């Protein structure tokens, strides 16, 4: 069976991902049926920032 290609996401999550430079295809959404919600983008962005800060 082919892998699912589409990302379920809300319009706000998509815009936010674009603005914050988050790759939406790599996020596991917490919304219904795994939909990526705006909170998921905020959370991912925060994690990304922490990753960057760590090596210091």
């Amino acid at each position, binding site marked *: 069976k082919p892998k*699912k290609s*589409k990302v*379920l996401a*809300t*319009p706000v999550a998509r815009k936010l991902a674009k603005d914050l430079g988050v790759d939406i295809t790599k996020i596991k959404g917490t*919304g*219904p*049926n795994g*939909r990526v919600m705006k909170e998921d983008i905020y959370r991912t962005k925060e994690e990304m920032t922490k990753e960057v800060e760590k090596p210091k």
Partner: protein
Amino acid sequence: MKYDVIIIGGGPGGYVAAIKAAQLGGKVAVVEKDKLGGVCLNWGCIPTKTLLKTAKLYRDMLRGKEFGIVGIDDSKVKVDWNLLLKRKDRVVDRLVKGIYTLFKRNKIDLYEGVGTVLDKNRVEVNGEVITGKNLIIATGAKENFPEIEGLKEALESGRVINSKGALQLREIPKELVIIGGGVIAVEFATLFNTLGSNVTLIQRSKRILSSVEEEMALTLQKQLIKEGINIVTDTKLKSITENGILIDHKREEKLFKGDKYLISLGLKPQLKGIEGLNLELDSKGFIKTNKRLETSVKGVYAIGDLNGKFALAHVASAEGIVAAENIMGIDSIMNYNIVPTGIYTFPELASVGLTEEEARKKGHDITVSKFPLAANGKALAEGEATGFVKIISDNEYGEVIGVHIMASNATDMISEAIVAMQLESTVYDIAKAIHPHPTLSEAVMEAAFGSIDRPIHM
């Protein structure tokens, strides 16, 4: 060139395009030979829904006892047709005047008269030639009368009428024969049957509303028969004479008599005045357009009934907005996959997206979930428990690809589905949205539960 856009026809296609183009800063001219609002406001959507509102109230009045209301003398309570037509006129007048006001407010130049297109930049009205960079054709459609013996004479004499004629009747017909089984036919059948006419509906195919989701159309057909409408399906019209309408029905000839015959058998485009453009037409003779509403001639757009996509006012308006946006430099396309239809019978029908059949044909692996209104608290409280909500979803993600609603206010309930589909919603999202109790819309949520595993109340 004087105008950014000249629009021919001021119906729900043209007038909305005009307002949108003006809002976007365009200099706009509209040519209208009759009244702004077109068929929809003057002879279509609004008049019929105003009459149907009264019919529904009248029907509910006669059911008063069931709801605990006494003291109504059924033999005395009547719809006064002329009083009703006056109300219809008041509603229409107010709305049509509103459009004229909107034109002034948006500084749209209105040319009252028949527009004749000279070329894609020039239109003649009352001898004057106006010029524009773009042209939107929004002249609508007219009735398609088949070639049947005697029809032409019967139309001329007024024995056979169209929907416009039905809105101008002097009285409620005693015996009404309706030829056709589409939306308009079925709505008028509902109207006059409720107001007391004996209605016979003669339909060519096996069932009414052939383009509507099958179970819904069949359930309505049963309901209409139960309410006293004589529905004759599987027929072939033969001729119309002084004696009545002659049809072939199961290899037998039958004659139907009425004091009025209402015919509603589809539409053909209104192309008069625009022949000069030589626009490409589709196989049915409608103007060919793409998703940007462009015709085969650059700078010329065609919106509404005359492009043959959907003969619906909201489609005409949506197309008008798309055309206006494209003309004013905003890239815009129509999404014909999410177009709702509404039918104002008792109960109403409304649909958006694919039917089971269509979905399977397109290769979708689907789930069909149906929730009956008989299990919905509000439907029982309102005494309107005939109907259901059916959701078709694609199994890959659970995406909602079709919703079909039969309910007393299905035409408002469907908006939830169109917004959901616009947002590429899955059944999980709809199920997760907390619907207020008690409402008919809970049935939509329940159907979504059913798509996932099971509804609560079933």
